[in-house]
């Protein structure tokens, strides 16, 4: 039979009454709170008994303190005198139990009680939540800027879109938590003047919905990127979890070694910074080496050129140069990259000279991007965005079999970019060579890419 158990206590930090009730229930079942961890609370088996619990806060305490300060010990002495025994503490949060019947509560003055809760909130809960919200607002601002300049990129990048949705959920959760606390604090202060402690709200079903929202959208974000990108994200996420675990272990070790709180804080912060740099470096290295060595290349062959390894992409392209002409070069790279979200997909395609070879302007190259719009209402937005990329002039759409066509000739006359609008897709095709295009070739483009 196990003598310890871990539980996740789904409660607001200031919902003391509900927490005290739960701890008493656990004691009656034979489980006494033993420790408060980063995520889980640990319980140890005891003889089932009726105990009274008191959850309170000591605002001057910190999770970096090697041991309780003299002031904190004085507080414990007062509590012990009234029969309260400390069972677990973490930073400012202190949990006591009392075996006596109807003990005098640790806090008997609601004004002081609300004040100590607010001191705790100002020291950890509010800065933490507001900090997270500030970072998320910054991310939102960056996403909005990207949306303003390149909405197609946002609409077709599943990972970006899903991550944005996940982070929006996190922002709403933080805002709800802060808003709920501020409302409670304002009401509790008034109630305390009348000698009452206002019960605090617990976590609502809404919070569970937002947690689910975040988990689902983050999973969707990972699933919507290529395996290689998912691996890089995975390294970052696992690295982040590893950093947190290492920081917590280092902090605990320094506490056991009785190092002062300031030194502990400085070392763990420094460690966090160095480890973050290492993880970022590892992810960048993985990305570079993975690309160079084709670790996730789905069986693509590689070739060596000037001492470097390149991937010999030979993807199946919807339209090739060979469909339009005889290019006179047989070592082409045929590369197809897909970005997709539930709203739109983008296929970026290039048929060109091998990477690493000396550039030869006489070898014709073809590159095009297809934007497949899955939600008709977004078609106009994508069209406008793509039209803004170059100084297009209207062209005859008939030979392309398109509804609209635009052309932007290279200023040096050595090529053309065409924008072709079909029913649910927009094609931007670049001929990197002097090409006027015969009606047959244009019809071929329309037939292959028009959808």
């Amino acid at each position, binding site marked *: 039979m196990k003598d310890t158990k871990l539980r996740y206590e789904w409660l607001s930090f200031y919902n003391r009454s509900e927490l005290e009730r739960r701890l008493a229930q656990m004691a009656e079942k034979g489980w006494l709170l033993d420790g408060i961890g980063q995520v889980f609370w640990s319980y140890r088996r005891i003889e089932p008994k009726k105990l009274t619990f008191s959850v309170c806060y000591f605002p001057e305490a910190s999770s970096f303190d090697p041991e309780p300060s003299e002031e904190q*010990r004085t*507080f414990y002495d*007062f509590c012990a005198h009234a029969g309260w025994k400390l069972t677990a503490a973490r930073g400012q949060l202190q949990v006591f139990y009392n075996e006596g019947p109807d003990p*005098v509560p*640790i806090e*008997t*003055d609601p004004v002081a009680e609300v004040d100590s809760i607010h001191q705790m909130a100002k020291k950890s809960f509010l800065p933490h939540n507001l900090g997270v919200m500030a970072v998320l607002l910054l991310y939102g601002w960056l996403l909005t800027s990207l949306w303003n300049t390149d909405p197609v990129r946002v609409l077709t990048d599943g990972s970006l879109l899903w991550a944005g949705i996940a982070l929006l959920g996190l922002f709403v959760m933080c805002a709800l938590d802060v808003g709920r606390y501020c409302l409670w604090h304002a009401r509790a202060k008034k109630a305390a003047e009348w000698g009452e402690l206002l019960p605090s709200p617990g976590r609502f079903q809404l919070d569970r919905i937002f947690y689910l929202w975040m988990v689902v959208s983050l999973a969707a974000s990972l699933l919507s990127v290529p395996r290689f990108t998912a691996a890089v994200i995975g390294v970052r996420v696992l690295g982040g979890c590893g950093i947190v675990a290492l920081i917590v272990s280092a902090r605990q070790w320094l506490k056991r070694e009785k190092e002062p709180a300031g030194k502990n804080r400085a070392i763990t912060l420094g460690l966090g910074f160095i480890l973050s740099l290492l993880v970022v470096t590892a992810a960048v290295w993985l990305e570079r080496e993975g690309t160079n060595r084709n670790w996730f290349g789905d069986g693509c062959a590689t070739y060596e050129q000037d001492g470097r390894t390149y991937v010999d992409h030979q993807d199946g392209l919807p339209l090739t140069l060979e469909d339009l002409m005889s290019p006179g070069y047989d070592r082409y790279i045929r590369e197809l990259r897909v970005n997709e979200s539930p709203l739109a997909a983008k296929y970026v395609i290039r048929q060109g000279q091998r990477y690493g070879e000396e550039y030869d302007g006489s070898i014709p190259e073809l590159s095009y991007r297809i934007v497949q719009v899955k939600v008709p209402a977004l078609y106009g937005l994508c069209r406008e965005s793509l039209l803004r990329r170059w100084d297009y002039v209207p062209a005859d759409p008939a030979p392309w079999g398109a509804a609209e066509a635009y052309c932007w000739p290279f200023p040096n006359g050595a090529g053309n970019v065409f924008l072709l609008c079909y029913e649910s897709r927009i094609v931007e095709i670049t001929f990197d060579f002097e090409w006027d295009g015969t009606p047959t070739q244009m019809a071929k483009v329309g037939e292959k890419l028009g959808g």
Partner: protein
Amino acid sequence: MPRAKFQTLTEQMFYILLCLREECCGMDILDRVPSMTGGRVSVGSGTLYNLLEQFSAEGMIRETRVEGRKRSYILTAKGNEMLDREYERIRAQAEDYRRYVGKE
């Protein structure tokens, strides 16, 4: 309208200050208040700790002795004045009650 700090005293503040008319430590106060009030009023250990800190910071009490973690305090002139003022306020309230109820 929130009550200005220590302009009026709560029952617990009043009895803590009353205890401190003579030198005593925190634990003495925890025991004395219930016995002074026939068990009607008790002060929680957390509340007492906070109030002693606040009274000390406001100059209403001062530390007289430190033996290990046991600290003893006594009321200052300022604390005494506040206690007297609170007593006068309560007395005036009682007088008003007596006069009002007496008239009826």
